[in-house]
């Protein structure tokens, strides 16, 4: 009695254990939709690590808002909107760009430290001209004459009408020349009439829960606050949070849809081959237990699991159902369940073992997604096989009454080699046309409407795709600034840089200006400037603020370069704070250019961050690693087959899945598909599955009609569940589905036609 109920008790205990474990974990903590978590946390390449952290950190927390309302009420509405965001705990800051208060704060900050920050660069430029002119006059006197002439020329220019107040403290025009150089950095985008632009920064990462719903609630509250003042206001906003939330919702919906459709497809295919349809319901419990076990084991092994694993893992139902078919359809009258198990042990364990081994190879990958997928499917197959054996032990007499559809071997023996040759040729031609393009965006659920709105809002803020974005790194501020200067010097003519580094002196210029010799020259210069400017008609009393501040500058010891930079950058207002990045590896300056160009090899320490290209390069590297893993898997497959069946049959058995995979790649390439990492993973999975059929085709039991039906049913149900993945809007899921479906269908055709002469004829 107890012995007969033991399988049921084990199944219940396993289900309770797995269910209890899954109920005990915090889904927000353990499951993620963050696309960057698909890449390794411990990425070896420091530049790539930095690019990843930039995507995850402050730059990703920016939300851009465009308000449109009648001009009379626009300013007040924009102020109310920004104030509402600032009062929310979800936002750190919110600035209407029109009020330019952050620019004024920057101006005040730079003015207060103008001699420390700006004088060294000005002095170095003047000295270069002095050297080029080969002047015989002493440098301080020459410099005083030149500064007076520059001030005179400025007063004669139309711009001087707006700078009269500033000139009293800055007659050397330090701030004015900087404003010219950094105009693209500090200029606010020109909002069209009736539009106000708001720049805001969220407190939490947009990829976390706290960075999404609370942010959307705060944006809605801000809109209400603005609408109270301008009822007909129109609001458009963009930010990573919107994409992340949309992707999360879509991916969750996709997981449910794909799993349901895959189950339905498997049952539909099964119904074609089985008369007792109600008996098919018995296939569901092992599949459910298989999925439960897969999720439980994956969450036990990995602290965080990406939900995409479950979308890709929907193929599990197609694989797990195979064992049920093999076991039930091979039933013979007057044969005990244990005898049936002994008879089927080798093909069942061989097929499952090869698949498990193939998926376990994936756990050697660098990519967390691939490792998680490997564990998920391997665990699912093991639990699926176990659940199948236990479940059908409870129903030893279950008979699905299969329909045996005889298919003639339509490839005559003498044509087999030529046919294989032709198929190899087609594969080779196709494979030569394979074009690889790895793009991180293929993992995301496409959101064309959001993309359109994002582009429109960013264009309003003056962001375009015409230029490049660079990150220049160094171990210290001095090294990063020196490297940035080298990049600027090596850039092609016509390229203009906008970056925070432009606001700071080159370390060499700073050292020259603060050296004892430099200070002595500056001291001589300032006294000479007083005399020469007065002779030129300037009123020295009006320039008192300049002489007072300059004397104080010369009197006080100069700050250390690193200290000066850190203090200045810590106080940077508004969006400018985003243009510098510091971490344990050092400092990085972000800069943009008006036109794209390739970083010259001499420009050390600079990384292009244009679009998502940097991460895509990483992705291509992971694909190369996955290709190596796939080759190892194929070699292992050949070796195992040869060990099981001897070299002659072993090579034939291994050739079937390998030709199916090669031909699939060839056909997909000829149809114009662009290949990526997930085609490669699909090929690996497809080879493992196709290898199962090759083993079953060669097993002693294969010649029987029941076993042939089981292989057909297995192959077609697997193909059906993978083809469901082709319904996915996520390109990576589509790629996986298309590749595996094609391989499995081709493998099935090869088995049915006995192209590799594997069948054992009784």
């Amino acid at each position, binding site marked *: 009695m107890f012995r007969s109920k033991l399988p049921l008790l084990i199944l219940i205990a396993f289900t309770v254990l797995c269910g209890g474990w899954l109920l005990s974990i915090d889904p927000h903590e353990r499951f993620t939709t963050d696309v960057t978590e698909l890449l390794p946390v411990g990425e070896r390449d420091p530049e790539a690590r930095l690019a990843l952290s930039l995507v995850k950190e402050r730059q990703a927390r920016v939300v851009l808002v465009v308000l449109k309302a009648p001009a009379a009420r626009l300013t007040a509405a924009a102020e109310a909107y920004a104030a509402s965001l600032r009062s929310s705990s979800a936002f750190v800051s919110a600035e209407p760009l029109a009020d330019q208060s952050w620019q004024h704060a920057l101006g005040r900050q730079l003015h207060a430290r103008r001699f420390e920050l700006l004088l060294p660069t000005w002095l170095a430029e003047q000295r270069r001209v002095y050297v080029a002119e080969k002047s015989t006059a002493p440098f301080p006197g020459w410099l005083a004459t030149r500064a007076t002439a520059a001030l005179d020329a400025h007063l004669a220019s139309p711009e001087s*009408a707006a700078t009269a107040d500033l000139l009293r403290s800055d007659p050397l025009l330090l701030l004015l020349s900087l404003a010219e150089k950094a105009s693209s950095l500090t200029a606010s985008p020109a909002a069209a009439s009736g539009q106000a632009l708001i720049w805001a920064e969220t407190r939490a990462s947009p990829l976390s829960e706290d960075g999404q719903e609370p942010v959307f609630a705060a944006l809605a509250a801000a809109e209400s606050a603005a609408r109270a003042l301008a009822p007909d206001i129109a609001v458009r906003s963009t930010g990573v949070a919107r994409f992340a939330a949309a992707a999360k919702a879509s991916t969750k919906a996709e997981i449910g849809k794909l799993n349901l459709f895959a189950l339905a497809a498997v049952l539909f295919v099964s119904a074609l081959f089985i008369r007792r349809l109600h008996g098919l319901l018995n296939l569901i419990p092992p599949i459910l237990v298989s999925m439960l076990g897969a999720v439980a084991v994956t969450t036990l092994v990995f602290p965080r699991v990406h939900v995409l694993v479950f979308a890709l893992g929907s193929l599990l139902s197609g694989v797990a159902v195979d064992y049920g078919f093999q076991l039930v359809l091979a039933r013979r009258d007057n044969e005990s369940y244990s005898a049936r198990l002994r008879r089927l042990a080798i093909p069942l364990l061989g097929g499952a073992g090869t698949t498990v081994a193939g998926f376990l190879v994936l756990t050697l990958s660098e990519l967390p997604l691939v490792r998680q997928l490997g564990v998920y499917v391997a665990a699912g197959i093991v639990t699926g096989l176990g659940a199948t054996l236990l479940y059908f032990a409870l129903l030893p007499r279950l008979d699905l009454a299969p329909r045996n559809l005889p298919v003639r071997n339509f490839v005559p023996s003498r044509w087999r080699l030529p046919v294989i040759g032709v198929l190899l040729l087609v594969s080779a031609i196709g494979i030569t046309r394979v074009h690889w393009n790895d793009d991180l965006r293929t993992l995301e659920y496409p959101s064309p409407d959001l993309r359109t709105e994002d582009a429109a809002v960013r264009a309003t803020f003056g962001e375009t795709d015409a230029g490049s974005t660079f990150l220049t790194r160094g171990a210290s501020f001095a090294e990063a600034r020196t490297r940035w200067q080298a990049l600027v010097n090596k850039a092609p003519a016509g390229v203009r840089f906008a970056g925070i580094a432009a606001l700071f002196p080159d370390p060499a210029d700073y050292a020259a200006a603060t050296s004892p010799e430099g200070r002595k020259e500056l001291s001589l210069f300032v006294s000479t400037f007083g005399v020469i400017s007065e002779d030129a008609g300037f009123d020295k009393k009006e320039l008192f603020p300049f002489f007072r501040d300059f004397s104080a500058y010369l009197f006080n010891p100069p700050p250390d370069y690193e200290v000066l930079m850190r203090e200045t950058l810590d106080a940077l207002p508004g969006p400018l704070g985003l243009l510098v990045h510091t971490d344990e590896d050092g400092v990085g300056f972000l800069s943009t250019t008006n036109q794209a160009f390739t970083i010259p090899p001499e420009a050390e320490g600079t990384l292009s961050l244009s679009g998502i290209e940097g991460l895509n390069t990483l992705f291509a590297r992971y694909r190369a690693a996955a290709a190596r893993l796939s080759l190892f898997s194929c070699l292992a497959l050949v070796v195992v087959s040869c060990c099981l069946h001897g070299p002659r049959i072993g090579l034939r058995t291994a050739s079937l899945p390998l030709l199916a995979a090669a031909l699939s790649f060839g056909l997909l390439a000829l149809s114009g598909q662009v290949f990526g990492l997930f085609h490669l993973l699909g090929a690996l999975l497809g080879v493992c599955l196709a290898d199962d059929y090759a083993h079953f085709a060669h097993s002693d039991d294969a010649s029987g009609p029941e076993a042939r039906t089981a292989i057909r049913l297995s192959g077609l149900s697997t193909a059906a569940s993978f083809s469901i993945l082709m319904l996915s809007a996520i390109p990576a899921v589509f790629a996986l589905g298309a590749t595996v479906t094609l391989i499995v269908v081709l493998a099935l055709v090869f088995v049915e036609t006995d192209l590799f002469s594997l069948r054992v004829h009784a």
Partner: protein
Amino acid sequence: MILRLLILSLFISLPRLAAAEPYATELNDAWRARITALAAPKTLSAPFTESRFTPLKKKPVVVEGVVRIARDRGLSLAYSQTRAPVVILDERGLLLRHADGREQSAPPQAESDLRLLHALFAFDLVALEKVYALTASDAPDGTWTLAFSRRPDTDTPYRELTLSGEASRLTGIGLLKTDKQKIEIRLEPPQINPVFTPEEIARYFR
């Protein structure tokens, strides 16, 4: 009855119609005719000499150039210095167009002040009246002056704006911030209604 009501309402509305004219008490019909004549040319071009007074220098900085006015486009100042940008003042604000094609706009906070300057050059008395009080005076030698003085409760940076002329010709413009910081522009006899070429329009206006 209805006719009497109509006549009554007409009498009531007449003073209001008169009050709708800008500077109704400061400007008589002769002044209005003069201003209408000044504003009449659709285009105008005149050499000018600009004296900039700054507290930094004991003497004004003097520059020269050509002013071009197109009523539908705005005002443009082209200075004779080689590297000086063209200054364009129109309904969209102030623009500096440099020789290398670079363009600089005035910051948004200066927009209201620039609108007033534009109103001065366009003889938009309705806009000026809100911020400036007007004193109109005729001299015996035939010259005249329109002095716009900043009203006490306003914060525009220009304390006084002055237009001066002879008969129906504008000869001088004054923009005064402080006694030490002011701009005086002296206009030579203008070319009335010149036809600006497409190249001139592209270069001097927007």
